[in-house]
């Protein structure tokens, strides 16, 4: 990887950085500075939101530090939002409905934490009035958290499953 500037820092680069941080046991805070971009990553819960946003959007060129999005209303945001694991991509509910982890009661869940998934794999179902909608992972990676409760009502846009995207394969 050549010396990175903000313009050529890719999604994969960010994912790699996050992976390094994630695997280091005694690291709580990291600050990286490039021309035009400062990436500030902290391990504790609430600023994790900003980390996830930075990772999900590699084109961020905003001056540092990357602030939490003010348009996300604090009060009414689903509780699960705070649990966003650093670097993971949220699979969000495309509709309001009932969340199911398995194809039918008694069956094995579609995914478990730690399981690897392909972008096209179904990770859960949302039932809206007897109509079952398969929800795909959307990204190749590893399931790191499943904040939604099986059988519970999930709201539109609520995070259901977090997937840590695979690091880019070496060329």
């Amino acid at each position, binding site marked *: 990887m050549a010396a990175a500037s903000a313009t050529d820092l890719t999604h994969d680069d960010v994912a790699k950085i996050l992976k390094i941080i994630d695997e280091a046991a005694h690291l709580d805070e990291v600050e990286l500075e490039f021309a035009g971009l400062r990436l500030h990553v902290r391990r504790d819960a609430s600023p994790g939101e900003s980390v996830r946003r930075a990772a999900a959007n590699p084109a961020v060129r905003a001056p540092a530090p990357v602030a939490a999005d003010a348009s996300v209303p604090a*009060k*009414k945001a689903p509780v699960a939002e705070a649990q966003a694991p650093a670097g993971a991509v949220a699979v969000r509910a495309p509709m*309001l409905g009932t969340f199911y982890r398995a194809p039918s009661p008694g069956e094995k869940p579609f995914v478990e934490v730690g399981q690897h998934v392909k972008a096209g794999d179904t990770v859960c179902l949302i*039932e809206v*009035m007897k*109509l079952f909608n398969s929800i795909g992972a959307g990204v190749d990676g590893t399931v790191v958290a499943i904040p939604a409760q099986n059988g519970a*009502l999930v*709201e*539109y*846009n609520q995070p259901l499953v977090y997937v840590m995207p695979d690091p880019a394969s070496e060329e």
Partner: protein
Amino acid sequence: MVSPPFRRLLVANRGEIAVRVIRACDKLGIETVAAVSEADRDSLAARMATRAVCIGPAPARESYLKPEALVAAALGTGCEAIHPGYGFLSERPAFSRLCRTAGVRFVGPSPEAIEAMGDKISAVRLATAAGVPRVPGSERIDSLATAQSEARRVGYPVLLKASAGGGGRGMRVVRSEREIAAAMQAAAAEAQAAFGDGTLYMEKFIERARHIEIQVLGDSHGNVVHLGERDCSTQRRHQKLIEEAPSPAIDAAMRAGLADAAVRLAQRVSYEGAGTVEFVYDTDAGRAYFLEMNTRIQVEHPVTEMVTGRDLVTEQIRIAAGEPVSFLQEDVALSGHAIECRINAEDASRGFAPGPGRLAAWSMPQGEGLRVDTHCFEGYLVPPFYDSLLAKVIAHGSSRAEAIARMDSALARCRIEGVPTTVPFHREVMAHEDFRAARVTTRWVEETLLAREKVAA
């Protein structure tokens, strides 16, 4: 305290009516769940409700118009009832039916009653059978030849209307046979686009009309009462702007006749809940004809509440729970006069162009005989996705003149910044001698008030 009619109710609407329904539930001791789109997560209704759930993205067709999402939200949050407000799904028989199937009470009439009244041709047939006269006109029009012969029978000018219609869409005035083919085509296309049904029918066009409607309440025990009339003649393009009760244009005999007719019609369809039977009053002939029945709470219901002292929304909810109407017909007494002005985020000087935006300032008048129904507050962002209604200012007085004076002073005290509003328009109407003398007809705003401004400009 008596036990509440329901433990928890889902509010399937937004804006001021969602706030109004939550207030009624608070009064009855019912918990509320506000079903909100993503654009309304921070709305006053979301804040006031016991809980809010996001049912979908901002566009109404992906949120407030999704029956399955709303019923799923009600079931998922343990609601026993759904209040549909007005607009959106409030008059969709399929939604009422879906609620019934899912075991959730729909606050409104049965799907059968909505269906019977929703189709204008069927409604007119029912009205005729109930002895409620309709405007001379036709049944369904299926060809140009039928249209021409019917127009000749009824007499020009005629009005082409959409069978599935409302709100002025799919309507055309035809003044001679030369215009009829083009008007038919335009009206049918508009009706098809707006309602998914291009079926048309025809009515005699009344040149000087007032819009008069009767408020009724029916319950599951077979009681139907009326709460007098509202006069909603101050309209622009068939959209009501100002409503008042009682009507300054009709006498006691006419009032009693219309009320009887409305009650008969509601009884005929075993009507449950709040409904409004609309009439067009021909001021030249002194005769009233049936227009349609709206099977929901109306925007302008507060004027009736102000002159009767009855709470229509709590009545609706009690009725949905199987309770009888809480009063008898002989207990309904009218007191004084009430006027409502709809304050929209629109610029009347620019063809009523809507102007969404953030409310930099929001301060509404308070005082004796005043009521303001609104979902707005300082800093609120009026979203561009929905209708432009910001607030309803309702003024009550012992006489019409007193109500007008009170309204005018209230309007002068509205301080709204950040969006255009119809406050200046309403002040102009309150000051106008035609309005003061009750000479306004349903086309007065366009043909007199706005037309004169155009000349003066």
